[in-house]
Protein backbone atom coordinates (compact mmCIF):
# COMPACT_ATOMS: atom_id res chain seq x y z
CA UNK A 1 0.00 0.00 0.00
CA UNK A 2 1.40 3.35 -1.00
CA UNK A 3 0.86 6.00 1.63
CA UNK A 4 3.41 8.55 0.46
CA UNK A 5 1.08 11.44 -0.18
CA UNK A 6 1.98 15.04 0.41
CA UNK A 7 0.49 16.36 3.62
CA UNK A 8 -0.82 19.71 2.53
CA UNK A 9 -2.88 18.89 -0.53
CA UNK A 10 -6.08 16.88 -1.05
CA UNK A 11 -5.34 13.27 -1.86
CA UNK A 12 -7.62 13.14 -4.89
CA UNK A 13 -5.57 15.90 -6.56
CA UNK A 14 -2.43 13.89 -5.97
CA UNK A 15 -4.10 10.79 -7.37
CA UNK A 16 -5.09 12.72 -10.50
CA UNK A 17 -1.52 13.84 -10.92
CA UNK A 18 -0.25 10.25 -10.56
CA UNK A 19 -2.71 9.00 -13.18
CA UNK A 20 -1.74 11.79 -15.56
CA UNK A 21 1.93 10.95 -15.15
CA UNK A 22 1.31 7.25 -15.71
CA UNK A 23 -0.63 7.97 -18.90
CA UNK A 24 1.74 10.57 -20.31
CA UNK A 25 4.81 8.49 -19.51
CA UNK A 26 3.26 5.39 -21.08
CA UNK A 27 2.94 3.28 -17.94
CA UNK A 28 -0.73 3.24 -18.79
CA UNK A 29 -1.23 2.89 -22.54
CA UNK A 30 -4.12 4.31 -24.60
CA UNK A 31 -7.00 1.84 -24.46
CA UNK A 32 -5.75 0.13 -21.28
CA UNK A 33 -8.52 -0.99 -18.99
CA UNK A 34 -8.41 0.39 -15.46
CA UNK A 35 -9.00 -1.86 -12.50
CA UNK A 36 -12.12 -1.44 -10.39
CA UNK A 37 -12.44 1.53 -8.06
CA UNK A 38 -12.13 -0.77 -5.08
CA UNK A 39 -8.94 -2.39 -6.39
CA UNK A 40 -7.43 0.97 -7.25
CA UNK A 41 -8.36 2.29 -3.80
CA UNK A 42 -6.71 -0.73 -2.18
CA UNK A 43 -3.64 -0.33 -4.38
CA UNK A 44 -3.27 3.34 -3.44
CA UNK A 45 -4.37 2.81 0.14
CA UNK A 46 -7.05 5.42 -0.06
CA UNK A 47 -10.76 5.73 0.52
CA UNK A 48 -12.83 4.45 -2.44
CA UNK A 49 -14.75 7.74 -2.55
CA UNK A 50 -11.46 9.59 -2.97
CA UNK A 51 -10.45 7.30 -5.81
CA UNK A 52 -13.89 7.71 -7.35
CA UNK A 53 -13.53 11.47 -7.21
CA UNK A 54 -10.12 11.36 -8.88
CA UNK A 55 -11.45 9.12 -11.66
CA UNK A 56 -14.44 11.39 -12.11
CA UNK A 57 -12.13 14.40 -12.61
CA UNK A 58 -9.97 12.44 -15.04
CA UNK A 59 -13.05 11.45 -16.99
CA UNK A 60 -14.24 15.05 -17.08
CA UNK A 61 -10.88 16.01 -18.56
CA UNK A 62 -11.27 13.30 -21.18
CA UNK A 63 -8.25 11.28 -20.05
CA UNK A 64 -10.31 8.21 -19.33
CA UNK A 65 -13.72 7.08 -20.50
CA UNK A 66 -16.32 4.67 -19.26
CA UNK A 67 -17.82 1.89 -21.31
CA UNK A 68 -21.12 1.17 -19.73
CA UNK A 69 -20.68 -2.55 -19.21
CA UNK A 70 -16.97 -3.22 -19.23
CA UNK A 71 -15.41 -0.50 -17.11
CA UNK A 72 -13.07 2.45 -17.45
CA UNK A 73 -10.37 2.82 -20.13
CA UNK A 74 -7.49 5.17 -20.88
CA UNK A 75 -8.33 7.53 -23.73
CA UNK A 76 -7.03 6.73 -27.20
CA UNK A 77 -7.17 10.39 -28.20
CA UNK A 78 -3.53 11.42 -28.73
CA UNK A 79 -4.52 15.12 -28.72
CA UNK A 80 -5.77 14.91 -25.19
CA UNK A 81 -2.67 13.05 -24.00
CA UNK A 82 -0.51 15.61 -25.73
CA UNK A 83 -2.39 18.44 -24.12
CA UNK A 84 -1.98 16.92 -20.67
CA UNK A 85 1.72 16.36 -21.34
CA UNK A 86 2.08 20.08 -22.17
CA UNK A 87 0.10 21.06 -19.07
CA UNK A 88 2.26 18.94 -16.81
CA UNK A 89 5.44 20.26 -18.45
CA UNK A 90 4.23 23.85 -18.15
CA UNK A 91 3.35 23.44 -14.51
CA UNK A 92 6.70 21.88 -13.68
CA UNK A 93 8.55 24.53 -15.67
CA UNK A 94 6.74 27.32 -13.91
CA UNK A 95 7.59 25.75 -10.59
CA UNK A 96 11.24 25.35 -11.61
CA UNK A 97 11.48 28.89 -12.86
CA UNK A 98 9.93 30.26 -9.72
CA UNK A 99 12.47 28.36 -7.65
CA UNK A 100 15.46 29.51 -9.78
CA UNK A 101 14.25 33.12 -9.69
CA UNK A 102 13.99 32.93 -5.93
CA UNK A 103 17.66 31.94 -5.96
CA UNK A 104 18.37 35.16 -7.84
CA UNK A 105 19.18 33.69 -11.27
CA UNK A 106 18.27 35.49 -14.51
CA UNK A 107 16.80 33.85 -17.62
CA UNK A 108 20.12 33.40 -19.44
CA UNK A 109 21.73 31.99 -16.31
CA UNK A 110 18.87 29.54 -15.92
CA UNK A 111 19.19 28.45 -19.53
CA UNK A 112 22.92 28.00 -19.03
CA UNK A 113 22.37 25.89 -15.96
CA UNK A 114 20.02 23.62 -17.90
CA UNK A 115 22.46 23.30 -20.76
CA UNK A 116 25.38 22.44 -18.45
CA UNK A 117 23.32 19.79 -16.62
CA UNK A 118 22.29 18.21 -19.91
CA UNK A 119 25.93 18.01 -21.10
CA UNK A 120 26.97 16.51 -17.76
CA UNK A 121 24.23 13.89 -18.04
CA UNK A 122 25.22 13.07 -21.63
CA UNK A 123 28.88 12.53 -20.63
CA UNK A 124 28.19 10.29 -17.66
Amino acid at each position, binding site marked *: *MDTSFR*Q*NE*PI*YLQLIERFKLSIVSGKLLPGDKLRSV*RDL*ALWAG*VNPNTMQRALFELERNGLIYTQRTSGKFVTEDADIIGRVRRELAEAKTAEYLGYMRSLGLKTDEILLAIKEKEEENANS
Partner: protein
Amino acid sequence: MPILEAKSLTKRYGSNPALTNVSFAIEPGRIVGLLGPNGSGKTTLIKLANGLLQPTSGEILIDGEKPGARSKSLVSYLPERINVPLWMSAEELIKFYSDFYADFEPNRAQDMLHNLGIGEKMRIKEMSKGTREKVQLILAMSRRAKLYMLDEPIGGVDPATRDYILATIINNYDPSASVVISTHLIADVENILDDALFISRGEIVLYDSVDHIRESRGMSVDGLFREVFRC
Protein backbone atom coordinates in the same frame (compact mmCIF):
# COMPACT_ATOMS: atom_id res chain seq x y z
CA MET B 1 -31.74 9.87 6.13
CA PRO B 2 -28.51 9.92 8.13
CA ILE B 3 -27.31 6.50 9.21
CA LEU B 4 -26.03 7.90 12.50
CA GLU B 5 -27.31 11.08 14.07
CA ALA B 6 -26.69 12.71 17.43
CA LYS B 7 -29.04 15.45 18.64
CA SER B 8 -27.89 17.52 21.62
CA LEU B 9 -26.45 14.33 23.03
CA THR B 10 -25.22 14.62 26.61
CA LYS B 11 -23.82 11.90 28.83
CA ARG B 12 -22.66 12.34 32.40
CA TYR B 13 -21.19 9.73 34.70
CA GLY B 14 -22.42 10.94 38.04
CA SER B 15 -21.45 14.59 37.83
CA ASN B 16 -18.56 14.05 35.37
CA PRO B 17 -19.54 15.13 31.88
CA ALA B 18 -18.35 12.67 29.20
CA LEU B 19 -20.26 14.21 26.29
CA THR B 20 -21.82 17.65 26.22
CA ASN B 21 -24.48 18.72 23.76
CA VAL B 22 -23.07 16.76 20.83
CA SER B 23 -24.88 17.04 17.49
CA PHE B 24 -23.84 15.65 14.12
CA ALA B 25 -25.16 13.48 11.29
CA ILE B 26 -23.33 10.86 9.24
CA GLU B 27 -24.76 10.03 5.82
CA PRO B 28 -24.50 6.60 4.17
CA GLY B 29 -21.36 5.81 2.18
CA ARG B 30 -18.91 7.74 4.34
CA ILE B 31 -15.82 6.58 6.18
CA VAL B 32 -15.60 8.86 9.19
CA GLY B 33 -12.73 9.24 11.61
CA LEU B 34 -13.79 9.88 15.18
CA LEU B 35 -10.64 11.62 16.28
CA GLY B 36 -9.64 12.79 19.70
CA PRO B 37 -7.11 12.21 22.44
CA ASN B 38 -7.63 9.48 25.02
CA GLY B 39 -10.50 10.27 27.35
CA SER B 40 -12.16 12.74 24.98
CA GLY B 41 -15.43 10.79 24.82
CA LYS B 42 -14.94 8.62 21.72
CA THR B 43 -15.75 5.33 23.42
CA THR B 44 -18.69 6.86 25.30
CA LEU B 45 -20.15 8.02 21.99
CA ILE B 46 -19.71 4.60 20.42
CA LYS B 47 -21.20 2.83 23.43
CA LEU B 48 -24.21 5.16 23.32
CA ALA B 49 -24.74 4.31 19.65
CA ASN B 50 -24.63 0.62 20.53
CA GLY B 51 -27.08 0.88 23.39
CA LEU B 52 -24.47 -0.07 25.98
CA LEU B 53 -25.08 3.28 27.66
CA GLN B 54 -28.14 5.48 27.83
CA PRO B 55 -27.90 9.25 27.23
CA THR B 56 -28.36 11.64 30.13
CA SER B 57 -30.21 13.91 27.70
CA GLY B 58 -30.60 14.36 23.98
CA GLU B 59 -30.68 11.36 21.67
CA ILE B 60 -28.67 9.26 19.31
CA LEU B 61 -30.37 7.67 16.30
CA ILE B 62 -29.34 4.79 14.05
CA ASP B 63 -31.15 4.96 10.73
CA GLY B 64 -33.69 7.20 12.48
CA GLU B 65 -34.26 4.90 15.46
CA LYS B 66 -33.04 4.82 19.02
CA PRO B 67 -30.65 1.97 19.84
CA GLY B 68 -32.56 -1.26 20.31
CA ALA B 69 -32.89 -4.72 18.84
CA ARG B 70 -33.43 -3.35 15.32
CA SER B 71 -30.56 -0.86 15.39
CA LYS B 72 -28.28 -3.59 16.68
CA SER B 73 -29.09 -5.68 13.64
CA LEU B 74 -27.85 -2.78 11.48
CA VAL B 75 -24.67 -1.94 13.38
CA SER B 76 -21.50 -3.98 13.36
CA TYR B 77 -19.51 -3.05 16.43
CA LEU B 78 -15.86 -3.77 17.05
CA PRO B 79 -15.08 -2.89 20.66
CA GLU B 80 -11.64 -2.15 22.00
CA ARG B 81 -11.73 -5.35 23.99
CA ILE B 82 -11.82 -9.03 23.16
CA ASN B 83 -15.54 -9.59 23.41
CA VAL B 84 -15.84 -13.11 22.00
CA PRO B 85 -16.09 -16.10 24.35
CA LEU B 86 -12.58 -17.48 24.76
CA TRP B 87 -13.68 -21.12 24.84
CA MET B 88 -15.15 -20.96 21.34
CA SER B 89 -13.28 -21.80 18.15
CA ALA B 90 -13.25 -19.55 15.09
CA GLU B 91 -15.60 -22.01 13.41
CA GLU B 92 -18.06 -21.92 16.32
CA LEU B 93 -17.96 -18.13 16.31
CA ILE B 94 -18.82 -18.07 12.63
CA LYS B 95 -21.84 -20.26 13.39
CA PHE B 96 -22.73 -17.99 16.31
CA TYR B 97 -22.60 -14.89 14.13
CA SER B 98 -24.57 -16.59 11.33
CA ASP B 99 -27.19 -17.52 13.87
CA PHE B 100 -27.68 -14.06 15.30
CA TYR B 101 -26.92 -11.74 12.39
CA ALA B 102 -28.96 -12.13 9.23
CA ASP B 103 -26.42 -10.00 7.34
CA PHE B 104 -23.40 -12.13 8.30
CA GLU B 105 -21.64 -13.83 5.38
CA PRO B 106 -19.80 -16.92 6.64
CA ASN B 107 -17.97 -17.43 3.33
CA ARG B 108 -16.27 -14.07 3.60
CA ALA B 109 -15.19 -14.75 7.15
CA GLN B 110 -13.83 -18.16 6.15
CA ASP B 111 -11.94 -16.65 3.21
CA MET B 112 -10.37 -13.96 5.34
CA LEU B 113 -9.38 -16.45 8.06
CA HIS B 114 -7.90 -18.69 5.40
CA ASN B 115 -5.92 -15.82 3.84
CA LEU B 116 -4.40 -15.05 7.21
CA GLY B 117 -3.66 -18.71 7.88
CA ILE B 118 -5.84 -18.83 10.99
CA GLY B 119 -7.14 -22.36 11.56
CA GLU B 120 -10.90 -22.52 12.00
CA LYS B 121 -10.66 -25.20 14.65
CA MET B 122 -8.40 -23.07 16.80
CA ARG B 123 -9.94 -21.82 20.01
CA ILE B 124 -9.76 -18.11 20.81
CA LYS B 125 -7.93 -18.79 24.08
CA GLU B 126 -5.18 -20.56 22.15
CA MET B 127 -4.59 -17.52 19.95
CA SER B 128 -2.19 -14.65 20.50
CA LYS B 129 -3.65 -11.23 21.30
CA GLY B 130 -2.99 -10.04 17.74
CA THR B 131 -4.72 -13.05 16.22
CA ARG B 132 -7.71 -12.61 18.50
CA GLU B 133 -8.05 -9.02 17.36
CA LYS B 134 -7.86 -10.07 13.73
CA VAL B 135 -10.56 -12.71 14.23
CA GLN B 136 -12.77 -10.12 15.86
CA LEU B 137 -12.19 -7.67 13.01
CA ILE B 138 -12.95 -10.39 10.45
CA LEU B 139 -16.21 -11.22 12.22
CA ALA B 140 -17.21 -7.57 12.38
CA MET B 141 -16.33 -6.88 8.73
CA SER B 142 -18.03 -10.05 7.43
CA ARG B 143 -21.39 -8.56 8.17
CA ARG B 144 -23.22 -6.52 5.54
CA ALA B 145 -24.06 -3.89 8.09
CA LYS B 146 -25.38 -0.38 7.51
CA LEU B 147 -22.98 1.06 10.03
CA TYR B 148 -19.63 -0.24 11.21
CA MET B 149 -18.34 1.19 14.47
CA LEU B 150 -14.70 0.34 15.01
CA ASP B 151 -13.32 1.46 18.35
CA GLU B 152 -9.53 1.90 18.20
CA PRO B 153 -9.03 -0.87 15.63
CA ILE B 154 -5.39 0.04 15.03
CA GLY B 155 -4.33 0.87 18.58
CA GLY B 156 -1.27 -1.12 19.48
CA VAL B 157 -0.96 -3.24 16.33
CA ASP B 158 2.15 -3.64 14.19
CA PRO B 159 2.35 -1.77 10.83
CA ALA B 160 1.65 -4.91 8.77
CA THR B 161 -1.51 -5.63 10.76
CA ARG B 162 -2.52 -2.00 10.54
CA ASP B 163 -2.24 -2.16 6.75
CA TYR B 164 -4.24 -5.38 6.76
CA ILE B 165 -6.97 -3.75 8.85
CA LEU B 166 -7.17 -0.67 6.64
CA ALA B 167 -7.19 -2.82 3.49
CA THR B 168 -10.00 -4.90 4.97
CA ILE B 169 -12.02 -1.76 5.61
CA ILE B 170 -11.47 -0.48 2.05
CA ASN B 171 -12.17 -3.91 0.60
CA ASN B 172 -15.50 -4.15 2.37
CA TYR B 173 -16.56 -0.64 1.44
CA ASP B 174 -20.20 -0.41 0.49
CA PRO B 175 -21.69 2.87 -0.77
CA SER B 176 -24.87 2.32 1.22
CA ALA B 177 -23.00 1.76 4.49
CA SER B 178 -20.93 4.00 6.72
CA VAL B 179 -17.85 3.30 8.77
CA VAL B 180 -16.91 5.13 11.95
CA ILE B 181 -13.32 4.58 13.06
CA SER B 182 -12.29 5.95 16.41
CA THR B 183 -8.59 6.53 16.90
CA HIS B 184 -5.97 8.90 18.15
CA LEU B 185 -3.49 7.69 15.48
CA ILE B 186 -4.65 10.02 12.74
CA ALA B 187 -1.74 9.75 10.32
CA ASP B 188 -2.38 6.02 10.00
CA VAL B 189 -6.02 6.30 8.97
CA GLU B 190 -6.10 9.69 7.31
CA ASN B 191 -5.85 8.39 3.74
CA ILE B 192 -8.90 6.20 4.01
CA LEU B 193 -11.18 8.80 5.61
CA ASP B 194 -13.86 10.86 3.94
CA ASP B 195 -14.60 12.96 6.96
CA ALA B 196 -12.98 13.85 10.23
CA LEU B 197 -14.97 14.38 13.42
CA PHE B 198 -12.78 16.00 16.06
CA ILE B 199 -13.87 15.47 19.62
CA SER B 200 -12.30 17.17 22.60
CA ARG B 201 -13.40 16.91 26.23
CA GLY B 202 -16.79 15.62 25.19
CA GLU B 203 -17.51 18.25 22.57
CA ILE B 204 -17.35 18.26 18.79
CA VAL B 205 -14.77 20.83 17.75
CA LEU B 206 -14.67 20.14 14.02
CA TYR B 207 -16.60 18.07 11.50
CA ASP B 208 -15.38 18.44 7.95
CA SER B 209 -14.32 16.43 4.92
CA VAL B 210 -10.65 15.50 4.76
CA ASP B 211 -10.37 17.02 1.28
CA HIS B 212 -11.79 20.30 2.47
CA ILE B 213 -9.49 20.41 5.48
CA ARG B 214 -6.47 19.91 3.24
CA GLU B 215 -7.73 22.35 0.61
CA SER B 216 -8.74 25.14 2.92
CA ARG B 217 -6.02 24.89 5.54
CA GLY B 218 -3.18 23.55 3.45
CA MET B 219 -2.37 20.91 6.02
CA SER B 220 -3.16 17.29 6.68
CA VAL B 221 -5.78 16.19 9.19
CA ASP B 222 -2.95 14.87 11.31
CA GLY B 223 -1.27 18.28 11.19
CA LEU B 224 -4.51 20.01 12.09
CA PHE B 225 -5.10 17.52 14.91
CA ARG B 226 -1.70 18.28 16.37
CA GLU B 227 -2.48 21.97 16.20
CA VAL B 228 -5.95 21.69 17.75
CA PHE B 229 -4.84 19.35 20.52
CA ARG B 230 -1.47 20.90 21.24
CA CYS B 231 -0.57 20.36 24.87
